[in-house]
């Protein structure tokens, strides 16, 4: 498993370096440590993750890996913004993004998720940003023990994320998002993910962040239960 983590980090770093010399390219590389609460299947688990993001012209590309003792996640994301409008006090961006996510869970199962979203972004010149993603998600789930008997599970559903953030000139930042998925979790719509946290950026070079990630069990038909809660701390290197 350690080898897998190492190879994944090398892959992410390589992805960054390969585009860095291009003109009009910016990006960041982030390492994060997360610890989950004594709740749900990820009871008292620690995880590490690495995320690389780079932007060039109208496109943003992101690759992320996360690992704990039970599961391994890989996510790739492309965000394309063909329409940008600048007004007196704000910017509006319209675009598309797509995710591919793979989860390997012990020697029990694997998930493959594909998400296609339209994106609406509103950013004020005072540092407030609102983002809404709306689209469709498809999920394949293979359970190895059932393979002789049934086909892999397949289903699709609406995908939606609302997020807001506020950045101050001092470098301080607060953010919140609510969605049917986040970078590593792709359940169906009734188990939404909540992420909120704060970050501080120094000289536009290094950013430190702390965040809490929460997921409820079936929040539509059931008396919901806190299924998962994780506290995360990370450092981002901006280039």
């Amino acid at each position: 498993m350690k080898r897998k983590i190492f190879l994944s980090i090398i892959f992410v770093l390589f992805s960054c370096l390969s585009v860095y010399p291009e003109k009009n390219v910016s990006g960041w590389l982030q390492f994060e440590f997360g610890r989950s609460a004594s709740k749900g299947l990820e009871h008292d688990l620690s995880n590490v993750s690495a995320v690389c993001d780079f932007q060039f012209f109208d496109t943003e590309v992101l690759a992320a890996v996360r690992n704990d003792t039970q599961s391994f996640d890989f996510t790739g994301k492309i965000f394309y913004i063909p329409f940008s409008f600048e007004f007196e006090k704000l910017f509006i961006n319209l675009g598309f993004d797509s995710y591919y996510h793979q989860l390997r869970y012990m020697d029990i199962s694997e998930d493959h998720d594909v998400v296609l979203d339209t994106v609406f972004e509103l950013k004020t010149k005072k540092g407030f940003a609102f983002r809404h993603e709306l689209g469709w998600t498809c999920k394949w789930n293979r359970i190895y023990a059932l393979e002789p008997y049934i086909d892999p599970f397949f289903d699709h559903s609406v995908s939606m994320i609302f997020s807001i953030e506020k950045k101050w000139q001092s470098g301080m930042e607060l953010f919140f998002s609510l969605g049917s998925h986040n970078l590593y979790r792709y359940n169906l719509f009734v188990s939404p993910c909540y992420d909120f946290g704060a970050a501080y950026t120094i000289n536009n070079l290094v950013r430190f962040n702390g965040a809490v990630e929460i997921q409820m069990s079936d929040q539509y038909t059931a008396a919901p239960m806190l299924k998962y809660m994780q506290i995360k701390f990370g450092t981002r290197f901006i280039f």
Partner: protein
Amino acid sequence: MKRTEKIFRIIFLLLACAFFTACDYGMYFFASGQDDADGRASSLSVLSGENLPELDVTSMPVYSFAIISDVHIGTTLSNNRDDKAFIKSFMELLKSSDPAQRPQFVISLGDELDSGRKWQADEYNKLLKKISDAAKAELGVSRYHTYSIVGNHDLYNNGWNIWKTEIYPYRSFYKIPLGNFSYYILDTGNGTLGYKQLEAFEREIRKDTNKKICFSHYPFYANGIWLFTIQDTKERARVLTALVNNDFLLLGEGHKHKLIECSMGDLKERVMGSLTFQRVYCLVTVDNNNQTVSTRTINF
């Protein structure tokens, strides 16, 4: 600025309206703190003595039991419930010429109460008394059990406080050992087993060499549907893998209000229709000698 405020007020009002559309189920999001699978089902109870069926089904070569599901006492969504017709149909089974076809106990697959109210529990217990009186008269026994499972509707309005004192067997995660077969009853009222229940369940079934039967309110597979099943793919993968690898023959579930059957090797999954909405229940026949299980749907 005033315009922005107006927009926010309208959005807030719309969200509030959406939130209270299901008023009878309570402000469940805020009020469900104590209704938590980790709290209710942290350890497995093993039923014994008076809690087992009076007739020694383990000595019978073949015996049967009945499954009812989603009774939803107090629902305003259907006026289809007909206790008289159900009891009449159940009586016919009890009078069956083949003793192996007479149900020796009943399992109810959750959502007994529509919104977790005390009056609904009282009415449900009246229905169980009718079942039990009929069975006692026909089978000549002095006790007759309906084993109930907790469902999501039972937990609304902090319904667990009512359920744990009023609904037999007053617990939500338990095992009924019956000779060569072990029956496992899971608590999926929150749409998840929770860590403690899942660990305890896996631990217990690994050391249990019997053939096994499992019941849960939420379906785990149901031919691959996603809504109305356990949502977390890791959790459902873990449970289904554990069932397939540990000699489970039947997985009975409710919640969906629709009959769905599928097969995963020796394991047969059967999602039941509702006793109230579809007027259907099921007879399960267990063959102790051949260690097989078969099911039959009964409409009334």
